């Protein structure tokens, strides 16, 4: 079962640059490996990761098979107001997961 880990500071001062760390558990099967019988294991990866703050996209990543299993992505953003970060992972075989985290900005 897919599960996400999000690390967002609970509080920040206005104008602070904060780091956001995200991890989604996923096999990220690259589609280049073979079974013992010789057949190729089909690709099964997360292709897209998006982060929105109060509904506006602030960060997006396109992922390829060269991203390691359980994609761990960190990035930065400027704290401007209190609100909610929403994270979305989309991938092969209809994979779709979301997570969210709130921040209060003084």
């Amino acid at each position, binding site marked *: 079962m897919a599960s996400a880990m999000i690390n967002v500071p609970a509080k920040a001062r206005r104008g602070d*640059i904060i780091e956001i760390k995200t991890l989604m558990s996923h096999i990220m099967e*690259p589609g*280049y*490996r*073979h*079974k*013992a019988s010789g057949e190729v*294991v089909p690709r099964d990866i997360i292709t897209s990761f998006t982060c929105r*703050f109060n509904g*506006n996209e*602030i*960060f*997006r*990543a*396109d*992922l*390829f*098979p*060269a*991203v*390691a*299993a*359980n*994609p*761990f*992505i*960190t*990035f*930065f*953003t*400027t704290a*401007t107001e209190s609100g909610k970060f929403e994270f979305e992972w989309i991938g092969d075989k209809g994979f779709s997961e979301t997570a969210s985290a709130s921040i209060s900005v003084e």
Partner: protein
Amino acid sequence: MQQPPNSSRRQFLGLAGGAAVLGALPVVIVRPAEATPAMLASAIQNVTGGATVRTGKVKLDIPPLVENGNTVPMTVSVAHPMAPEDHVRSIHVFNEKNPQPNIANFHLGPHNGRAQVSARIRLADSQKIVAIAKLSDGSFWSASVDVVVTLAACTEEVI
């Protein structure tokens, strides 16, 4: 009676020296300094649209010696302001010898405050990693790092 042993010793040394030179040659041939395979070049071309890519601004942090290619920590940062009128628009990371040249694209904007992203990647071989940043003025900046991988990822047998 001096002559035969001397000449055979000379022959032996000559042969041994030749063998040593031959042994060293493949190393030179396999790892040329600036080989950029066509796939990497065309993947970069897709992003830049043929624009000049200058070296600089971008910093690619990745261990130079990787024991396990299945998960390699990587950080890309761009020394550039993130102001609304002048910022880093995207960061693209490529590799030379994985089955696919792309690793990831990161789309940024002025609200990010700092142009820095981290991820863990897979490397199927010892190779060159290239990071390219696109700025809001349309210019491209890059950095590349050579990485030696002991245990390769992606292509080994499964189960």
